[in-house]
């Protein structure tokens, strides 16, 4: 039952929302149907197509309810038309025609990630409806009190209803503009699980899996969109390093990771997906980031990394999103390929002009290059500056370790 809920609830709720024209009614009907299944299945056995059974049972409940409401509104004799609501589709034989609405999930993705909702609401609603996560699970993953998260859900659902946010797939001319927030939400869900901060490790891993799963759904439903595929490839490649990134609670840099712990089949799938993306359409920021991740994944040892190519890819990324953080990454790649001096010069220029003086990673990157150049004293000063600027315990631990190394030289 739990497996059905996990895997199918997104699909079921998507269909029910279309039928009910309301998130709340759809959720209520689905819950009632699962409750009914809890009684019926142990007695009669699990139906051939459990998801279709649940959908049909919930649909039945929706019809009962709207009938009851109509009766009430028309002030006719109460309960006159009410069918016995306990009558479930006991004779259900597994005709799953009601289940073949792939568009329903696509509609739901676009509704949950509608730009008229704030991003907090988009994320919560996407995880709750398409992901089938409970409010409590989402709250734990985002380190929020459960009432705060429940409030976000209520607010988002009310806005959808009251402001008339449609439940439909946008027309082709508006698809690209509407896909941007969808991808952003999926990537945010993934990153919330991926970026090491704090919280329940298991729940965080769930978020990564959920982000990947949602991207797969998006790629299935809108075949051949190059940036959707790029997003999927990017997450697969990053996630392939999950077992190597942490060692006894401490962050392990890409360079120091045990590459035998990387998930090879997943890397292959990521690279295959990226190739598919690049054949499908114009390049975009997700494909470029995936290509960078692929170059790291393909290097057998850190020394084999194609830093020159990575520098070029960051240059391409800068054309889409010109942020000082990307410029910093480019400078690091240049330091590793064209020489430390050149990289250092670029980082110092960014520090002066880019507004990154307060950004700990700039100082950490600078320190790292100085360390490689053997300029230990300057490296130590830069590590200290980086330490002043970050409160993240895992990052601080890493910086302290490095500082101790260069201070010992």
């Amino acid at each position, binding site marked *: 039952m739990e497996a059905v809920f996990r895997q199918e609830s997104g699909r079921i709720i998507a269909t029910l929302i279309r039928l009910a024209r309301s998130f709340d009614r759809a959720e209520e009907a689905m819950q009632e149907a699962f409750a009914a299944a809890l009684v019926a299945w142990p007695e009669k056995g699990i139906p051939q197509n459990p998801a279709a059974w649940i959908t049909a049972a919930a649909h039945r409940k929706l019809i009962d309810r709207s009938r009851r409401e109509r009766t009430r509104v028309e002030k006719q004799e109460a309960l006159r038309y009410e069918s016995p609501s306990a009558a479930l589709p006991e004779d259900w034989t597994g005709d799953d025609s009601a289940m073949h609405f792939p568009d329903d999930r696509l509609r739901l993705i676009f509704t949950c990630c*509608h730009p008229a909702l704030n991003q907090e609401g988009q994320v919560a609603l996407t995880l709750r409806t398409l992901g089938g996560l409970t409010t409590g699970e989402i709250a734990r993953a985002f380190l929020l009190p459960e009432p705060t998260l429940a409030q976000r859900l209520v607010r988002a659902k009310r806005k959808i209803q009251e402001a*008339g*946010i*449609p439940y*439909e797939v946008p027309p082709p001319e508006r698809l690209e503009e509407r896909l941007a927030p969808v991808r952003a939400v999926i990537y945010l869900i993934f990153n919330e699980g991926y970026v090491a901060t704090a919280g329940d490790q298991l729940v965080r891993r769930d978020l990564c899996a959920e982000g990947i799963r949602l991207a797969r759904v998006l790629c299935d439903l809108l075949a051949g969109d190059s940036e959707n595929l790029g997003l999927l490839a990017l997450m697969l490649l990053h996630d392939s390093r999950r077992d190597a990134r942490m060692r006894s609670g401490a962050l392990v840099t890409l360079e120091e990771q045990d590459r035998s712990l990387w998930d090879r089949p997943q890397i292959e799938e990521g690279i295959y997906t990226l190739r598919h993306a690049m054949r499908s359409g114009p390049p975009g920021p997700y494909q470029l980031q995936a290509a960078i991740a692929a170059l790291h994944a393909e290097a057998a040892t850190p020394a084999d990394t194609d830093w020159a190519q990575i520098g070029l890819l960051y240059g391409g990324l800068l054309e889409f999103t010109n942020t000082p953080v990307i410029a910093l990454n480019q400078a690091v790649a240049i330091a590793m390929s064209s020489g430390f001096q050149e990289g250092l010069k670029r980082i110092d220029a960014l520090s002066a002009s880019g507004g990154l003086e307060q950004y700990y990673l700039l100082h950490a990157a600078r320190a790292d290059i100085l360390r490689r150049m053997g300029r230990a004293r300057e490296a130590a000063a830069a590590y200290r500056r980086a330490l002043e600027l970050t409160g993240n315990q895992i990052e601080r631990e890493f910086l302290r370790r490095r500082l101790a190394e260069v201070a010992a030289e």
Partner: protein
Amino acid sequence: MQYMFLIYSEERPEGPPPEEIERIMSGHWAVMQDARQKGVLRAVERLKPSSVATTVRTQNGGPVTLDGPFAETKEQLAGYYILECKDLDEAIEWAKRIPSNCKGLEGGIEIRPVADIPQLP
């Protein structure tokens, strides 16, 4: 469903530059004409600048008349439309077409669904 489109524009004391006025007006005319033809235009008004606004507020339990707009914000209400739309997406497409620099400088359109007024008993 009816939506109100509130046009907020940053005010330039002397109004929009002459070369902009024509563009702004023709933008509004196009929207008005199209909306009227489709039978969805419920209301449209242009407002005088906030420098001639008067606000009546309740203070200490009684009404007080004050010079000026309700709130001293950078962008002020410059006018509004009420249009009948299928859903928010349709409303957003109208909003993209409505000029919002009506009072001289940049602005934006706030879309608000119109609520029913409860019937008088």
